[in-house]
């Protein structure tokens, strides 16, 4: 039984790695050759996910599609800036979508100073070992999310997907703010352990 589960995990990991390699090749083709065919493959994979991501906060389908378009154009535009050492393509697309949602929420606020690129020093060269780690990371992160206690998982989803500040999560779940924070810390600790041990 255990062996069966393990091989199912391995199949999932292999599939994730296959996809990730494909995405990286597509991004390179977009960046270097302005390859529209490669871009359309990325669009077909990410646009439906981005749309449900954008629709989580009572956004109309129409507005969500505008945001999908904006996010995918940013992928086209910034493909040359993607750095595999800093995370998977999927994570990079997530950060683009997240920044777009922040920008939209702050349209009247206009706060360009929290540009996340501010701390991305290009000089920071990852070690070979770290690169290898990144390759397997997505599978491990997915595994961490599967094995995490439901009450922590729920907080992560409300935060990352539903874009709720901690105070709002606390109010929604009728729990103290401190509990929201401690569940977030526990969730990160859980992820950390799995990334370190690979189990």
């Amino acid at each position: 039984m255990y062996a069966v589960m393990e091989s199912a995990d391995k199949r999932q990991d292999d599939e994730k790695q296959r996809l990730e390699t494909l995405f990286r090749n597509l991004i390179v083709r977009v960046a270097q050759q302005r390859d529209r065919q490669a871009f359309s493959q990325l669009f077909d994979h990410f646009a439906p996910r981005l749309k449900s991501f954008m629709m989580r906060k009572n956004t109309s389908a129409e507005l969500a599609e505008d945001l999908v378009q904006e996010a995918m154009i940013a992928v086209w535009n910034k493909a040359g800036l993607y750095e595999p050492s800093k995370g998977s393509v999927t994570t990079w697309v997530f950060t683009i979508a997240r920044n777009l949602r922040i920008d939209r929420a702050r349209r009247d606020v206009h706060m360009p100073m929290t540009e996340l690129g501010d701390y991305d020093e290009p000089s920071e060269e990852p070690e070979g070992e770290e690169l290898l780690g990144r390759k397997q990371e997505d599978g491990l992160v997915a595994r961490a999310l599967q094995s995490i206690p439901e009450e922590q998982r729920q907080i992560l989803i409300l935060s990352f997907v539903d874009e709720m500040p901690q105070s709002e999560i606390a109010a929604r779940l009728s729990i103290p703010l401190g509990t929201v924070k401690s569940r977030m810390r526990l969730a990160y600790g859980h992820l950390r352990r799995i990334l370190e041990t690979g189990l």
Partner: protein
Amino acid sequence: MKPTHHLDYSTLLAHAAGTLDEAFSVVAVSHLAVCPTCRAALREAEALGGTLLEQMPGADVSAACRTRTMAALEGVVPPPPAMRAPPSALPAPLARLVGARSFDEIAWKRKAPGVAMFDVTLPPGARGQLKLLRIGAGRAMPEHGHGGEEITLVLKGAYRDHMGRFGAGDVADLDEDIEHKPVVEQDGDCICLVATERPTRFKSLAARLMQPFVGI
């Protein structure tokens, strides 16, 4: 020198999710700029977002959206590479907000003996409050519990409290119920960037500073 006091993981996760109040984001980004440890942790937190995005059930995207996007690629002009910010004593995001590159250019307001403050103006609608605080050498900050959320980043000089020494780049990201009594080191002023929640709900930092000072 690498910082030894870091952002709380719950702050890093909120930052990765994009839900941190603006004032707190400025402090977080200013710390991240000098802290490889927190940058690595942030990337892991962002990978959680990536994985959750990957696991979203796909929604049907209209053919029109696809066509519009493909058509829009024609007109896209890649933005020019960002200019490197000129060297500054202030972290880049803060320097942009304050419009100053050195602490001497800041219009400090004296609040108490040895204590000066500067309100960093955030754009209207931004959440939270941001202040620069300059405390004289050897002085104690008023004893206070944290009324509400608060993050402090040391930009210059150093102070000590029961948690240890906080020097440039170190961040105090503490639970609100922690009492602490920082004392600035003897060899110079200590300048901190402090993000707090709105004072409408909590006693303001200014009010706390007006409290009688504890002797050194």
